[in-house]
């Protein structure tokens, strides 16, 4: 008798603890911020945010979260949306598509969520975008570069926009890959290139775009190989690459793999540069083994060199966030401001209801803003019309911008 009771009590206690911990994990409390002098009588509207806040890609995700937070706080201080206070609700997707889907479902179930900034990875956007689209929640990604997200799976032949609610301030790999190929083949004179990718939506797509253009420009793809996203020992792949005798390696993927891969290439006696896309541009790349002379492309122009980004950089520094704004900070700040701007137009002096959502979507579609990264507007697919890209190279232990340009088909 007493034993069964004890068991039941323990089980109930355990369930309680589990339920509590389920509530408290992975949830960043909405940050308040300002608004003291504004009229907030109509309530609070939530700007959602989805990106990796833990795990190996958190360096990028935390910079994005802080940049969104900055935009929301500034909007509250300036009373951007009359009658409403804006709040940020940040969800951690751990860089995993499945968890991003859960985060999107959670945000979509909250009627106060008006828009979502994110995600970082193209694979997570594939999961999140359709869920948010069902509830007509605007999603703007500052970092997704896979072309299929805006132009459908047959983007090369018959582009067809899958979600009218999905936009991005980053340009696509259909431009980034060829841009990188032009740099590596024409400017660096590399003719024998090994292409490696991590098999994910972003990495495999980018590597394919790069390889196609490189071949068009007369280079030979001497070998193609895949590595696992969580691999750490690349000796098998490197032995294959070494046998093919390339003069450069192109990697489609992110810095947690690219850094160690670069180091292990050098360890095997291959002193050839590794080049990658926006996914490897992070301060930790060199700490994890990235070498001097490695290259990367990134979307947009470097914020440090843009006069338009100065206000953002200063405000970010003044806010005292513990993490740097990292590769996507300025693009994220712009993405959040596009939602806020669209919201103030769609709501006007009225109240927000489900009927306002269509107005918000068309307001975002018609965006014409001067943002930190330059002029922001979207084409009929939701892609940014700003097609600037920058080549970076590792010099003195970190990525330094080499040249900024716009891709023109050869």
């Amino acid at each position: 008798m007493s034993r069964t009771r004890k068991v039941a009590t323990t089980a109930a206690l355990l369930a309680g603890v589990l339920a509590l911990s389920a509530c408290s994990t992975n949830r960043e409390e909405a940050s308040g911020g300002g608004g003291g002098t504004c009229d907030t009588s109509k309530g609070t509207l939530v700007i959602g945010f989805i990106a990796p806040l833990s795990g190996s890609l958190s360096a990028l995700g935390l910079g994005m979260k802080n940049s969104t937070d900055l935009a929301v706080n500034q909007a509250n201080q300036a009373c951007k949306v009359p009658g409403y206070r804006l709040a940020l609700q940040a969800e951690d997707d751990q860089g995993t598509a499945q968890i991003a889907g859960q985060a999107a479902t959670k945000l979509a179930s909250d009627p106060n969520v008006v828009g979502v900034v994110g995600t970082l990875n193209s694979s997570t956007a594939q999961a999140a975008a359709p869920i948010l689209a069902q509830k007509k929640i605007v999603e703007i990604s500052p970092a997704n570069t896979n072309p299929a997200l805006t132009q459908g799976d047959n983007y090369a032949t018959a582009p067809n926009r899958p979600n009218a609610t999905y936009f991005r301030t980053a340009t696509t790999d259909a431009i980034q890959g060829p841009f990188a190929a032009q740099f590596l083949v024409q400017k660096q004179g590399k003719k024998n290139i090994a292409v490696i990718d991590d098999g994910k939506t972003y990495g495999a797509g980018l590597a394919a775009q790069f390889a196609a253009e490189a071949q068009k420009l007369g280079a030979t793809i001497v070998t193609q190989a895949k590595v696992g996203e969580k691999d750490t020992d690349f000796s098998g792949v490197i032995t294959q690459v070494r046998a093919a005798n390339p003069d450069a390696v192109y990697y489609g993927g992110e810095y947690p793999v690219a850094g160690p891969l670069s180091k292990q290439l050098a360890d095997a006696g291959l002193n050839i540069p590794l080049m990658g896309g926006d996914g490897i541009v992070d301060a930790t790349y060199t700490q994890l083994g990235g070498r001097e002379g490695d290259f990367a492309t990134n979307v947009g122009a470097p914020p440090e060199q843009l006069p338009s980004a100065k206000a953002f950089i200063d405000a970010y520094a003044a806010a005292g966030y513990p993490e740097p704004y990292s590769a996507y900070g300025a693009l994220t700040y712009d993405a959040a401001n596009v939602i806020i701007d669209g919201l103030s137009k769609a709501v006007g002096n009225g109240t927000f209801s489900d009927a306002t959502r269509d107005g918000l979507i068309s307001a975002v579609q018609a965006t014409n803003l001067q943002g930190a990264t330059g002029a922001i507007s979207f084409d009929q697919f939701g892609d940014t019309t700003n097609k600037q890209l920058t080549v970076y190279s590792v010099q003195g232990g970190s990525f330094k911008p080499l040249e900024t340009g716009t891709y023109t088909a050869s």
Partner: protein
Amino acid sequence: MSTFLSQIANGLMFGSLIALIAIGYTMVYGIITLINFAHGEIFMVGAYGGLATLTYWVPTAVVAQWYFALPIALVAGALVAMLVAIAMERFAYRPLRNAPRLAPLITALGVSVALQEAVRVFYPGATAAIPFPPLFLDGAFVIPIGDGVVIRYTGVLLIVVSLALAFALERFVERTRLGRAMRATSQDRDVARLMGIDPDRVIVLTFAIGGALAGVAGVLYGSYLNNINIDMGFQNGIFAFTAAVLGGIGNIRGAVVGGLVIGLVRALGGQYLPGGTAYDYVWIFVVLIIVLVFRPQGFFGESERVRA
């Protein structure tokens, strides 16, 4: 030819690392028939323990000299891993010694998650991969065959240390009094107790040895790949468990052979089988399935003993 030899070398390096972890799995199973799924995390904790010692307690001038840094890190990693393994046995498994066999198995999974999260939360910067300093001669030597076979010095260290420790352990179990006590306990705990052996002491010893070897493996892994992350225990733990089953769980020699087979299958499968490196992990489990179909007890395992 040079490609083939390079892949053999790659396979031996990865394989000997897996072998070192697999020994811990197989020893614990041999003594208390528990599949200790938290053993992979002991390997991870060892790597972080070694790194913490080098980062926070040893002056940088000493770390810069590999002949100081290497033994310090190995001993520290082994010690931390050993203490965590002993604590794990004392607080997670001993209270369940006479519980149904499913209970400690579930507990092992819980300990695994708990250790991973503990490191993630309490080790500074552990949310992402952390760079690990090189602990041995940097660089490689080249065997002049064909295009040259590049073999890194840290890889050689990995193979030599792993096989030497496995050999020493085998001798210890076969030749010493304590080793005999371990074998007796694994055969029949109750009769061993009648012979004056304290089974609890033997079990603690087993966890301590397995933990220390995993800690050494963790530090060598960090030095070999130059960065560590909290997932490393889970991933490599699965391979080590597979190695232990392949070699015949409960058998130390089997764990070593199983580890080396896994390393070689991965390296050669990624090179020569269709699909390339994208499928290299698949071949490991294909081999496991084939071996289990034809020899369910593994390479060196004895067929299931009937227990009283």
